[in-house]
């Protein structure tokens, strides 16, 4: 209706000069990784702290990247209109998959295949079958077929293969469309989005099982994949808003993205605040109700003991506060306020992952009781985050560098530009 929509010129939206920041990210990432390793050696715990801190950081940025892939596929699956203007940002974020794969290879896969159990208890023969100080675990023995180090490595590689493959397909088609403006590419992406989504869901679920849930291999939750995914999309939306604001400031998306788009991102962020709470509570309640020891122990040492306050912090900070905070439309329609909430959400995504991973550091092979050993937050956790952040930025900016920050060839771009919330 509003006939005065002007399509931005290609020249105007190209994200130039990102090679420098990308390289800086790489250098900082590698340096911080070295620092983390040094800190890790300082603990003298067989790099156990190092492994778990790196795992938290890896999961944090992997979650954002997974969320970005989900957003892209979902956009095509629902043939969405409003989100065209921010889709390129999501596509660029998925460019971080390869570098995160290298981190996963180095921190998770190779050590496990070389026989180290510094992260995963199930990789320790003594822990599973008895020997040394360990009585052995019948429950893990029963799952022996699944927990083999080579099989584990193969699975992780497969997950990344799928993620990288999907992200390359969707980002590639979209970039090609910038040049040839061919609407049939949109149809092609829509046609493939259904099966991509199924594949994505399976891979992400099992990745959550393998990378995070298996830290306590005796425990199991069929909802864990959804739970992890809820955090993925949540943290991605916050990242999307922040990255878009940054690109807007740089002038790449100036006059393209409007407060209406942030409002919509905010609505999703609000919805997924609740989704996370819904899923994590459902997971908790089923176990609480059935009250079976091999299911409740995972919650027990998180809820009763040194982690109690941390758990309460999570419930309040990940659910109550952002739910009330993000409810109002005025919050979502003010860039500054909304940006603050996005940062808040990222902090609590970190806290969520930390709560999932860290109690397992002392548990099991760590030979401690997580109920009496509380959070041991240290410099090492910060450097680990900085390191993966640097590498993530490298992957993201590298992908975006020299390309339009906007899917200018998309046939629905005018619709997205004119988008208004009623």
């Amino acid at each position, binding site marked *: 209706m*509003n006939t005065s929509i002007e399509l931005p010129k290609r020249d105007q939206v190209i994200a130039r000069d990102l090679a420098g920041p990308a390289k800086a990210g790489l250098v900082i990432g590698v340096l911080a990784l070295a620092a983390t390793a040094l800190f890790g050696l300082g603990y003298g715990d067989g790099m156990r702290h190092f492994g778990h801190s790196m795992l938290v950081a890896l999961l944090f940025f992997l979650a954002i990247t997974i969320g970005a892939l989900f957003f892209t596929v979902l956009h095509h699956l629902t043939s969405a209109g409003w989100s065209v203007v921010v889709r390129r940002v999501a596509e660029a974020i998925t460019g971080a998959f390869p570098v995160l794969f290298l981190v996963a290879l180095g921190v998770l896969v190779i050590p496990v295949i070389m026989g180290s159990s510094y992260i995963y208890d199930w990789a320790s023969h003594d822990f599973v079958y008895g020997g040394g100080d360990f009585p052995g675990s019948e429950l893990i023995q029963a799952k022996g077929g699944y927990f083999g180090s080579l099989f584990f490595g193969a699975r992780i590689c497969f997950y990344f293969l799928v993620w990288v493959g999907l992200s390359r397909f969707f980002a590639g088609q979209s970039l090609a469309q910038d040049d040839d403006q061919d609407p049939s590419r949109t149809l092609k992406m829509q046609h493939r989005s259904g099966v991509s989504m199924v594949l994505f869901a399976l891979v992400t679920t099992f990745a959550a099982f393998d990378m995070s849930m298996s830290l306590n291999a005796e425990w199991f939750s069929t909802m864990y994949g959804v739970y992890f995914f809820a955090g993925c999309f949540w943290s991605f939306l916050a990242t999307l808003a922040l990255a878009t604001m940054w690109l807007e400031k740089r002038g790449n998306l100036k006059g393209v993205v409007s407060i209406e788009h942030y409002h919509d991102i905010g609505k999703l962020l609000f919805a997924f605040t609740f989704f996370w709470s819904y899923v994590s509570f459902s997971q908790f309640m089923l176990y609480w109700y059935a*009250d079976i020891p091999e299911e409740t122990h995972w919650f027990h040492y998180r809820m009763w003991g040194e982690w109690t306050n941390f758990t309460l912090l999570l419930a309040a900070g990940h659910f109550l506060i952002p739910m009330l905070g993000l409810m109002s439309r005025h919050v979502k329609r003010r860039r500054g306020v909304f940006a603050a909430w996005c940062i808040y959400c990222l902090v609590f995504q970190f806290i969520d992952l930390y709560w999932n991973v860290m109690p397992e550091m002392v548990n099991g092979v760590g030979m401690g009781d997580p109920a009496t050993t509380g959070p041991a937050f240290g410099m090492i956790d910060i450097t680990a985050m900085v390191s993966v952040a640097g590498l993530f930025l490298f992957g993201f900016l590298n992908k975006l560098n020299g390309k339009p920050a906007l899917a200018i060839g998309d046939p629905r771009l005018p619709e997205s530009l004119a988008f208004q919330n009623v």
Partner: protein
Amino acid sequence: MSDQNQNSSEIHGVVGYYSDVDGIMNASRKIRDAGYKKWDAYTPFPVHGIDEAMGTKPTILPWIVLGMGLTGLCVGLGLQWFTNAYDYKFLISGKPTWSLPANIPVTFEVIILFSAYTAFFGMLALNKLPHLSNPLHKLERFKRVTDDKFAICVESKDPNFDLARVSKLLGVGSEHVETCPIDTTKAALPIWFHGVAAILTCASFIPLALAFKGRFATSEKPQYHVWPDMDFQRKRKTQTAWEGFPDGRAMRLPVAGTVATGELRDDFELYHGVAQGTAVPASVRYDAALFGSAAGADRPEWLAGFPAAVVVDEPFLERGRARYGIYCAVCHGNQGNGVGAVALRAENLDAAKWGWVPPKALHSDNAKAYSNGELFHIASNGISTMAGYSAQVPAKDRWAIVAYIRAIQATQALDPSAAPQDVEFQPVPTIDSVRVSDSGADGE
């Protein structure tokens, strides 16, 4: 602008027509800036941004929904507190009668219920819907607003209303401006409508009243049968009388001398726990004359060992351990000490005051004195207040349980002082050692 000389008290308002969105947006801004309050824009489809152009204030509906959502929160929690923790305390799955995790799903649903209804009906109410008639519908030209035209109507009720000024304002960029006369057609609902509505309203209370009456009245009259052919079938029900057979019963007995498949049970040792060919004890729960040390001359020849049909080896004992764990341990405890989960639970509830009999320890001297055949008979048919398990557990498995009870008795008899000294010895708990001491709390 044909009919401008009409008196403003006789008209409903002035209507301007526009051919596109830009036209109505501009006109809306003008009317807004001129400070009019009683006016509205009519468009064939939702126009983004028109609320801003009209100066519409943000709706208060979200606040109402929030308020009702919070009300739902209180109602949901309150309902569960009142029903389950106050008015009628009821123990579910051993959770506290008032426990938040269990209440959250229901509370959540009540919040959704309240909020959704409030949002839906609140939206209707704030929009003054349903709005059954509008004078604008009388205008021929206005009909196109449902198709491809846009219109604004400023009503004469507006305190600033001035016919000439409004007409001028609306005229800018418009296709046409006209006045809308007051709708003089009789607007009242027909009289029969009130009557029908009253009757229907009263009728809607009938089911409620009947249900209410049913709660307090008894009736001698037979029930009303909706499907008589289903209620009165030409057949005899089980366990009823019928003169058609000589013995006056509707049910038939098996022909004398027949045995149902698998029911032969001619292996006395296996199925009855007595020596082959001797008198078979009745399958009753307890018969002091047949049983235990007090039995007299009628005591059956209980088997002392195991029937020839079973082989007592390690897998057999393992089978017994598993069956015992499934069927017996809930009461008698894994160690056979009589402290199973049910027993513990009953102790904590102080169930003895309702006549609860605790399960016995299976390694007592009394239990040791039973022969294998007697143990088998107890496992099959029960003893005293304990029910039998022949319906659930096949005969061979019952023998496996007997073997396992023997194993318990043998191991529990070991002298603790003979245990290796470097092992910390923990005595097996008895029911007295686990009894909760504050059972006088709700003292009856």
